[in-house]
């Protein structure tokens, strides 16, 4: 079993050096969006899922993981997808575990189960995914984040689950 203590990090000190290695890449916003209270019981709530794991339906244009400044697009992932219909295009995090079980990074089957059991009210027809390697915070906020937010809102979720990779 993997030791999750700090000493077992794959790249010790990684986050201590992010600003030194990638100055200016961190998003700093004075306009944080306030959390809003849930308006209905979770058992009635429609859940959307947004992930930066680079998960996408097989056959769709792969995320651009080689571009030096990043990829500012997102993919729609039908919430009814089977894991074998999905794939990952991502360079910047270990995907070995996800290759064995996609749910460790993109828990689509767990969410489908929760919906089937009635623990949650249901799933939005579409989930969403993008890659986290985006070195232009301004473009990220004005294009990807804005377009993604609009797409999520159009799904009319009651809850949005956000999962970084």
């Amino acid at each position: 079993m993997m030791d999750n203590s700090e000493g077992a990090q794959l790249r010790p000190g990684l986050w201590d050096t992010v600003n030194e290695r990638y100055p200016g890449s961190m998003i700093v916003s004075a306009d944080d969006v306030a959390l809003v209270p849930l308006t209905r019981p979770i058992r009635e709530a429609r859940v959307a899922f947004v992930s930066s794991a680079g998960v996408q339906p097989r056959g769709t244009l792969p995320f651009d993981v080689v571009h030096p400044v990043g990829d500012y697009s997102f993919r729609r992932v039908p919430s009814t997808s089977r894991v074998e219909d999905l794939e990952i295009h991502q360079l910047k995090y270990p995907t070995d575990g996800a290759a064995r079980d996609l749910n460790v990074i993109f828990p689509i089957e767990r969410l489908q189960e929760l919906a089937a059991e009635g623990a949650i009210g249901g799933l939005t027809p579409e989930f969403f995914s993008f890659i986290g390697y985006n070195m232009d915070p301004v473009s990220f906020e004005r294009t990807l984040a804005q377009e993604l937010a609009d797409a999520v809102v159009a799904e009319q979720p009651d809850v949005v689950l956000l999962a970084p990779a």
Partner: protein
Amino acid sequence: MSVQYLKEAAITGDHDRLLRYVRLHLGDGNEDAGRKEIDKAWVEALKLLLDVPPTDREFILGAIDRQSAATLAHLFFHLHFYFVQRSGEWIHDGQL
């Protein structure tokens, strides 16, 4: 490094700053690793040409002639990863 930081470097001719960024990108945040990755890609490309196999120069020249400089720059990064992957020594956590 933000794009603004890099654009300033491009304007002022600070190539060291730009090169460092490229190495960090290709080395997943490790500059020394990125430098080795660049070398690895060139070695792999060179090895493929040592026997002077036939190549499609019309395709190459046509692409250079017809495609934008930006598309070719993008292709350059694709080719880097192509040759690195082909070398069989893959340092990246994920996949293309």
